[in-house]
């Protein structure tokens, strides 16, 4: 299908959505996909279906590491396909719909959709698109005021895969809730991608009994047990169905090697050369502003985003030798309104570092840090907190909106006029 053959109403909707995106980004009130996507779907409700014609698609879902894995996957496959993707993290219907309008090629052979999808929207989006592969990363507690609980999500995934037997699955066999979901499908490539946070995986999704974890896997008395992995990781070597691939990433932490292993699993199913996929992934230095180091008043600051206990366990792996850590916690809708999860994070491991609690819920964090015996200060403004650090290397860890706030502050240089226009824009959007 040619672009010019699209439904005229859809073409109008695309123009209006592009305009909305331009305004949203110009006024810096968002990453520019969610609101324009809503506009697109409002004017032309079938946009997602029409725009995804002859576009085979890979979906990536899970509680953590969706955005990073999607970016790695996009990189890994970029030598073989023209990729349409949503790497800004707009991962519900409207975000995916909007990213489809940037599709350039309308021929079947070379285009591939690679989308991260919110765990609650996998079935809805998976049905609307020409979904060939689904990658399932992990499931753990996150924003419990918004997303239904993990076991329910796992059951819904399982039912969806059972009803769509043509979809191939790449799944993390170290996470029992992911395995339960993936076993709805008969064609699964199992990746041993690890599971640091086991608190939500201790009771069996089948019988309710206790799952026992050991170095070699996990099992339950009822027979539910870890499948044999097809893809394994040894340090920086990923072995895909017998072939060893060296993975040297710029992204920090062992967790990102695991994310790369998932991407290699997808590449394997698509017959992409795995060595060149790995080489391409090594070029990636940041993902939507995450992981990169920026310079602030002579401090070197690494920016990390973490929004739940499982994500925090990976953060501790990435903080490394940085002597100072600033933690920003907000509780707006996008963050989840209830930061109780701070008590599930072992902040005790920050002892000995210079720690500053920041963000709108800095006092919740401060109380938590007191009970963890971590000496700290409270400076609510994230940028002010960074400037107040004594260490020259700083890790900043924010949850979603706190991270965005800091990025805006670092971009700085807003004129007063633009600032008031932005406020007006925010007011209109609200």
């Amino acid at each position, binding site marked *: 299908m040619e672009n010019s053959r699209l439904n005229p109403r859809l073409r109008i909707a695309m123009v209006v959505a592009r305009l909305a995106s331009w305004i949203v980004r110009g006024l810096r009130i968002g990453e520019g996909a969610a609101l324009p996507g809503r506009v697109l779907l409002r004017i032309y409700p079938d946009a997602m279906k029409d725009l995804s014609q002859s576009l085979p698609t890979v979906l990536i879902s899970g509680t953590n590491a969706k955005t990073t894995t999607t970016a790695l996957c996009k990189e890994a496959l970029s030598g073989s396909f023209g990729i349409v993707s949503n790497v800004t993290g707009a991962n519900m219907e409207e975000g995916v719909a909007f990213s489809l309008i940037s599709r350039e090629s309308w021929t079947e052979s070379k285009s591939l959709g690679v989308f991260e999808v919110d765990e609650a929207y996998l079935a809805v989006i998976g049905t609307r698109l020409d979904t060939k592969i689904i990658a399932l990363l992990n499931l753990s*507690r996150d924003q*419990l005021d918004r997303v239904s609980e993990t076991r329910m999500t796992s059951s819904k995934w399982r039912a969806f895969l059972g009803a769509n037997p043509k979809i191939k699955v790449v799944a993390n066999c170290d996470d029992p809730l992911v395995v339960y979901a993936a076993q709805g499908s008969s064609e699964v490539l199992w990746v041993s991608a690890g599971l640091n946070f086991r608190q939500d995986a201790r009771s069996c999704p089948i019988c309710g009994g206790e799952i026992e974890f050991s170095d070699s896997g996990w099992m339950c008395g009822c027979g539910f047990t870890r499948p044999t992995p097809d893809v394994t990781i040894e340090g920086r070597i990923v072995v895909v169905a017998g072939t060893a691939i060296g993975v040297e990433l710029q992204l920090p932490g062992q967790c990102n090697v695991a994310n790369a292993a998932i991407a290699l699993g997808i590449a394997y199913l698509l017959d992409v050369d795995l060595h060149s996929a790995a080489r391409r992934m090594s070029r990636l230095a940041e993902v939507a502003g995450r992981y990169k180091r920026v310079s602030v008043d002579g401090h070197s600051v690494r920016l990390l985003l973490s929004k739940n206990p499982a994500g925090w366990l990976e953060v501790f792996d990435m903080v490394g030798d940085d002597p100072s850590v600033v933690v920003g916690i907000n509780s707006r809708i996008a963050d989840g*309104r209830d930061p*109780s999860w701070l008590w599930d994070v072992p902040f005790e491991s920050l002892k000995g570092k210079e720690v500053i609690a920041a963000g709108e819920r800095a006092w919740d964090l401060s109380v938590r840090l007191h009970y963890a015996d971590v000496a700290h200060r409270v400076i609510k403004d994230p940028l002010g907190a960074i400037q107040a650090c004594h260490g020259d290397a700083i890790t900043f860890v924010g949850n979603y909106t706190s991270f965005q706030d800091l990025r805006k502050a670092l971009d700085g240089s807003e004129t007063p006029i633009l600032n008031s226009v932005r406020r007006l824009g925010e007011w209109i959007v609200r």
Partner: protein
Amino acid sequence: MTKIRVVSVFPDLLGTYGDSGNALVVSKRLALRGFEITLVEANLQSGVPADGDFYLIGGGEDGPQARAAELLSIDRLVEQAMARGAAVLAVCAGFQIMGTSFLGPNLQPRNGIGIFDCVTHRSEGPRSVGELIVEPASDLGKMPLLTGYENHQGVTELLEGARPLGKVLVGNGNNYGTKVDGAIQGRAIGTYMHGPVFARNPGLCDFFISLVLGPLEPIDDPELTVAHERLYSERIELVTK
């Protein structure tokens, strides 16, 4: 002085909303007053010890909740410990299973442990999600308003022996109709407040401790006190504004 044993009950089954923090707060507030503490994590593998002084149980999903109830009803150690003078804090799903009956998976009614005289049904209305502010019952003595975060579908009806923990000013608590939250019965406190509730309300934590140990000295840690006060005033301000 003998060691005080603080028991976090099945945090691996019922600890979804940071509720295991309650055990940490109790332990630290005892330690700051000079008590010697053992914090016991009673998980599926170790089972629940019989010789605890404080037992704390939190919230979680339906399947694990039913499993916890099953395990606790086998040897009834928590009840025995209570009879010997221990205190119990039960939050959300933990509160429901400590009652007379609750709904298991597939909405089948199940027997609870019976520490509280109360019955939990399921609300037909929307899930109760949001900030909860509770005016403490007079049983709690002089105590400021309590704050927490509720997230549940349960409707808990108090029967004869259980008195409400307090009157709901903001949110739902036990029930859309009666406007009360939680229960207090003997040395057991139940509530729908996460946060965790003792981190949000150190006064309630100290009251809980005093149920076992009698009147307490105030804590001499000005920085901790300030952090608690700032957190508390932000929560109260947000929902009363």
